[in-house]
């Protein structure tokens, strides 16, 4: 071993000497826009690239490859000079020596007085619950360690997590927002006590005040009362509101949230004459056309859709067929990145495309519906006509097994056209199903807000109760619930988790409970009622929406659990009555019955027929089972038959007339902080957005050509390689954004279109979320909520520092002497079926062609008793870039947040990162976008190990590359020597050791790291050990699939598989035996335990 080390150092010395005198090849001169000459030049152009700098081979890129951390990054903005630092160090070293000798204070053990049943200290318990976003539930299974919720997983028993296969074990996936909700629960910035004009009051004072105000309203039948909620799907909450409205018939209930369903609703009304909820079945879809629908990342039902979609792409020796996804989008999305064909169009061109496609489809298919006469009204689009024909032909060939899906951001006409297409393709009832709306009281939210504001302006509102949401911040610029309007109402109450922009203008702020603190019910995307079960008493004096609304009823002090239970108890009794009444109707056809019920009483829970037992004993056991399983069985909304009416589409539809000069704007919810509600969540703020790799900010996305036109630059580094970008001034319909708007050059963005993400520019979000980015709501109007034409954009005077992780941790060859490294691999389905290997297949060196002892990690003959060898396989074909793995890992492994300044210095701590690669030579229209999750590879010949002077990173007998925090002295040699750049160093004390609530949040099975320590992916060793201990006590081996790493559990497409590679029958072994399996940088002979399966694309051979 010691001899090896000598050779290593010799080699290293030689290497350094070779490169010291600047003999490393100099990069080509020229900025980001000199991309074309390189292509024309002699040098072979890059097939895959992560950043425009890389495509252009700019000097900044080379520096990033050569150095993991920017040069002298430690001196940037450093108030201490180096000498002062040394002096300080001298003193603190002496102190450190002393503190090292200190005895630990005696610890206490505090047992229970009466130990709860099932509670064993040290053993986690799991409870079914749910989080909801936009009213749509994500079913969860939350982990509780001694009563503290510490991690959430998906609920595999929930119908949404299960596919049609009865053998299916269910998916434990969640979205990133649910994963990060743990952090929000323990956020010290949460609102904590009821406040009246900024002064703390008790809940009973509030109740008293409201009861008095209600008595005043009673004679007027509540004419002055207005409720403003977000989208409500909860049956109980809806029943409560309806109860209040019965008691106060003149009171009104309004709903508004910025990312609402208005367009889809209006589109359904246009096509069917009534609002519907559309549910897709991707498990039966062979061809999918998505019109701006980001159904893999941001849509109700996205987890189920992603799982079914990925299952149809999981090509192996057994399954040789694969679905095909066409994407037409107005701004790059992760769904577009997974598409086999992707076209970017301007928002104004979408209608023309839709109409053209519909015309191609309808004459061909003999539809049950009469093809409507569509006025051509066609303008040129980016999608050539012959492709539209080919696309239509492909869809028509696969009629009854295709899906045309449209995003909620598209205008109603596109939704209507899509309904026609699906009907024309006979998909309805096969892959596309309709049901009643999920919302308890489906309404056009824009109109609802308009009515509220009219009433406020007319001084008809005396008491405004805002239940959740932040309307002062996020209402449209021309329908703003601003200070002036707020002050026109006499009594304003805001229920909110934070004291935010709206709370500031309200008399009463009631702190809202987190979903892990409150009882509630909500609906999943298909309508299944999902029970929200608390895991912990409210940390502060928080109240749920149910409790707040109860104040307006006679039972004003009812507990939330009683409210929910009573609702379902009554639903059982109600149902008995209903069923008696409906016995006669039951003889009618099954298809019609739900529809009748829906028409008679839209949206109420009686439209669905859960079998709630009426007898109290039956009810109790039924209810306990519902709470245990997390859902009420049989509550999925029944399928509805609706008939398409194309008549409305004949008139030219207003909106999106492309004749307007100027730029087109696209508004989207932010990929990580949504509509701004997660702004104070550090995990989500620091999570690199999947395509831009931007953290802590939003930016105006512009295409490379538009950037050129506007003269926008990205200048790298005043001191190092920080990304300083130009700002733009955007004005739209006379309004402009007040904060600086950094411009980000986005490959694949349509020219002349500027994408703005909502949710930033918060002033009252909390200490994490304040003053990051710009507020796009300032120019978002009610008429153009998602896109608008005619914006003026010009270059702004200032530059702006963005924290981009795009170029961080690059895996290119630092001496640039060879071909670009073969990192991402992809082939077409056709190539795969013909047995072709991807090009540039690198030769693996012989196993003994190494400095390492060839028998050292010979895992098949370790003689280690049970003979486990842990390994992982990541199927790139199924990775959809959702970022779930990164945030699940952060939650499971107590990974700290470092802040924008540190991210700029390449010091983010994520153990698993998601690399985004673009493909092709054309930056404005890349041929493909690819994602690659990169955790520690757990190399058998681990380059990090021999360079550690203190043996802080060593191999375990089962092949794990262990990191021993207590031995680590922070030399960072290991990180320097790691070709995958997966090691993370605690440059500072990033962990918050002080805030008591965060101490409750941490996973007790993982060490909390301190300053000066290297850390990295452990393959979730705590889960491995726990499974091993359980199996050994039970006298068996660990079963395949028993150990599920955090990233694997959260992956909606099951792209990550972990297990024992010594077991030939394990899932991971089978994947590794696939022909697509390859080792990342295998030519370095590191023999990684994590391997990848190359991606497959299924392009239409007729579309080139």
């Amino acid at each position: 071993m010691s001899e090896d080390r000598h050779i290593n150092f010799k080699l290293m010395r030689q290497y350094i000497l070779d490169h010291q005198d600047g003999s490393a090849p100099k990069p080509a001169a020229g900025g980001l826009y000199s991309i074309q000459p390189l292509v024309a030049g002699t040098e072979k152009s890059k097939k895959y690239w992560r950043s425009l700098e890389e495509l252009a081979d700019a000097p900044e890129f080379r520096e990033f490859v050569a150095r993991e951390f920017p040069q002298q990054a430690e001196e940037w903005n450093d108030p201490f000079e180096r000498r002062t630092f040394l002096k300080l160090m001298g003193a603190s070293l002496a102190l450190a020596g002393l503190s090292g000798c200190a005895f630990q204070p005696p610890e206490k053990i505090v047992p229970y007085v009466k130990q709860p049943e099932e509670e064993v200290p040290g053993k986690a318990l799991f409870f079914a619950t749910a989080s909801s976003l936009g009213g749509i539930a994500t079913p969860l299974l939350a982990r509780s360690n001694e009563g503290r919720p510490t991690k959430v997983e998906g609920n595999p028993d929930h119908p949404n997590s299960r596919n049609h296969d009865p053998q299916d074990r269910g998916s434990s996936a969640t979205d990133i927002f649910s994963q990060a909700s743990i952090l929000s629960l323990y956020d010290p910035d949460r609102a904590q006590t009821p406040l009246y004009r900024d002064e703390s009051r008790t809940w009973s004072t509030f109740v008293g005040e409201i009861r008095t105000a209600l008595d005043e309203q009673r004679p007027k039948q509540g004419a002055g009362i207005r409720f403003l909620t977000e989208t409500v799907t909860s049956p109980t909450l809806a029943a409560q509101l309806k109860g209040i409205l019965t008691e106060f018939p003149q009171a009104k209930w309004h709903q508004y949230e910025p990312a609402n369903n208005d367009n889809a609703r209006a589109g359904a009304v246009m096509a069917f004459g009534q609002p519907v909820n559309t549910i897709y079945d991707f498990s039966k879809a062979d061809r999918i056309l998505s019109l701006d629908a980001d159904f893999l990342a941001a849509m109700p039902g996205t987890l189920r859709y992603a799982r079914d979609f990925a299952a149809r792409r999981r090509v192996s020796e057994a399954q040789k067929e694969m679905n095909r996804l066409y994407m037409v989008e107005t701004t790059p999305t992760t769904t577009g990145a997974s598409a086999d064909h992707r076209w970017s169009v301007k928002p104004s061109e979408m209608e023309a495309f839709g109409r053209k496609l519909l015309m191609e489809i309808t004459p061909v298919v003999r539809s049950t519906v009469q093809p409507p006469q569509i006025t051509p009204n066609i303008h040129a689009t980016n999608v050539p006509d012959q492709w539209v024909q080919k696309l239509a032909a492909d869809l028509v060939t696969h009629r009854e097994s295709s899906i045309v899906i449209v995003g909620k951001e598209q205008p109603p006409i596109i939704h209507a056209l899509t309904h026609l297409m699906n009907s024309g393709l006979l998909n309805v009832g096969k892959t596309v199903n309709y049901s009643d709306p999920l919302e308890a009281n489906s309404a056009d939210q824009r109109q609802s807000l308009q009515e509220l504001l009219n009433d406020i302006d007319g001084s008809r509102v005396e008491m405004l109760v805002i239940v959740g949401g932040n309307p002062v911040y996020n209402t449209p610029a021309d329908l703003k619930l601003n200070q002036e309007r707020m002050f026109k109402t006499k009594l304003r109450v805001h229920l909110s988790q934070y004291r935010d922009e709206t709370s500031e203008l309200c008399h009463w702020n009631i702190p809202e409970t987190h979903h892990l603190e409150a009882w509630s019910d909500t609906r999943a995307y298909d309508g299944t009622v999902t029970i929200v079960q608390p895991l912990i008493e409210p940390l502060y004096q928080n109240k749920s929406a149910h409790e707040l609304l109860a104040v307006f009823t006679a039972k004003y002090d009812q507990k939330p659990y009683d409210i929910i239970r009573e609702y379902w108890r009554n639903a059982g009794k109600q149902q008995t009555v209903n069923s008696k009444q409906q016995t006669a109707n039951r003889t009618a056809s099954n298809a019609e019955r739900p529809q009748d019920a829906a028409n008679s009483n839209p949206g109420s829970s009686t439209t669905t027929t859960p079998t709630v037992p009426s007898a109290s004993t039956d009810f109790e056991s039924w209810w306990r089972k519902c709470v245990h399983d997390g859902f009420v069985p049989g509550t999925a909304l029944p399928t509805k038959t609706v008939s398409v009416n194309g008549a409305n589409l004949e008139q030219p539809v207003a909106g999106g007339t492309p004749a307007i000069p100027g730029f087109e704007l696209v508004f989207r919810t932010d990929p990580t902080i949504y509509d701004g509600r997660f702004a104070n969540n550090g995990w989500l703020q620091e999570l690199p957005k999947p395509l831009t790799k931007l953290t802590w900010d939003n930016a105006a996305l512009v295409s490379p050509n538009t950037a050129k036109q506007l003269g926008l630059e990205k200048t790298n580094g005043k001191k190092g390689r920080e990304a300083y970008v130009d700002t733009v001034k955007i004005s739209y319909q006379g309004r402009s954004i007040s904060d600086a708007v950094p411009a980000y050059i986005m490959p694949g963005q349509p020219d002349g279109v500027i994408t703005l993400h909502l949710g930033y520019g918060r002033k009252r979000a909390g200490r994490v979320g304040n003053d990051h980015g710009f507020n796009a709501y300032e120019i978002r109007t009610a008429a153009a909520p998602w896109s608008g034409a005619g914006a003026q954009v010009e270059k702004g005077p200032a530059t702006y520092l963005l924290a981009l992780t795009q170029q961080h941790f690059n895996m290119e060859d630092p001496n640039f002497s060879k071909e670009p490294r073969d990192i991402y691999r992809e082939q077409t389905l056709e190539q795969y079926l013909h047995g072709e290997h991807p090009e540039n297949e690198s030769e693996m060196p012989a196993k003994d062609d190494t400095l390492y002892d060839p028998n050292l990690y010979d895992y098949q003959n370790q003689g280690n008793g049970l003979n486990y060898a842990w390994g992982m396989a990541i199927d790139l074909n199924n990775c959809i870039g959702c970022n779930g793995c990164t945030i699940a890992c952060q939650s499971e492994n107590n990974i700290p947040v470092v802040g924008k300044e540190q991210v700029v210095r390449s010091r983010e701590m994520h153990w698993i990162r998601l690399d985004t690669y673009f493909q092709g030579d054309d930056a404005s229209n890349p041929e493909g976008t690819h994602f690659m999750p990169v955790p520690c590879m757990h190399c058998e010949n681990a380059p990090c190990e021999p360079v550690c002077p203190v043996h802080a990173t060593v191999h375990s007998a089962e092949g794990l590359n262990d990191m021993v925090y207590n031995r680590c002295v922070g030399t960072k040699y290991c990180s320097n020597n790691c070709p995958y750049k997966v090691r993370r160093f605690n440059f500072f004390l990033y962990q918050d050791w002080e805030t008591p609530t965060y101490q409750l949040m941490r996973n007790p099975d993982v060490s909390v790291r301190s300053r000066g320590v290297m850390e990295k992916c452990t393959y979730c060793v705590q889960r491995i050990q726990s499974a091993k201990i359980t199996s050994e006590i039970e006298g068996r081996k660990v079963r395949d699939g028993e150990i599920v790493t955090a990233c694997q559990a959260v992956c909606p497409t099951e792209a990550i598989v972990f297990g024992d590679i010594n077991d030939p029958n394990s899932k991971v072994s089978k994947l590794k035996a696939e022909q697509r399996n390859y080792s990342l940088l295998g030519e370095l002979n590191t023999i990684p335990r994590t391997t990848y399966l190359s991606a497959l694309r299924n392009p239409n051979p007729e579309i080139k």
Partner: protein
Amino acid sequence: MPQIFHHSTNALAKLTIYGAVFILVALLWVTAELNRSSWNTGQWVERQQPVQFSHKHHVGDDGIDCRYCHTSVETAASAGLPATTTCMNCHKQIWADSPYLEPVRESFRTGKPIEWIRVHDLPDFAYFNHSIHVNKGVGCSTCHGQVDQMPIAYQASTLQMEWCLGCHRNPEKFVRPKEKVFDMQWRQENKTNDEIAEGRSLATKYHIQPPNVLTSCSTCHR
């Protein structure tokens, strides 16, 4: 000019130089000894508890099984400390008025738990699991000593990593039949060749992992 140093100082100088080596070694030895001493490890130190609880009386005299109070020792990482109700199971009937038991009764009355002082305190980065040890034939007394003879509980071992490794490297020296795990009288260590041979066969029987697995860092540190 007279000599500043007398001849005899030569001897002193030599002694100092040679002595320095010994002093250095002695210092190292002292440090090592101090490090292993109970002053540092807390071994043998009796901890005063809020309740004058005697293991000697409960285990030795009354013969109560370890698992009556430490309920999760076979199933979880933590052996578990009895809830107040467990104490009151008996002490509602016997010694119900004893002044020594007032803290227990108070806890039962008020619902405020008893705050015991931790006797065995491992560092937070070591993840010890009772269940796997107990299920593989490592007896209570091997680590905790003869608890049945401790009027006041103390830490019987150093709990240092070298002590852990002593068994993880040579489990056959400490393993006993599973049915004897809770037997306080069983030998704490296998010393004779016969005993070690028995330990070895038990280790095979219980599928105790070989030392290369047991001494992998991530076995205990996560």
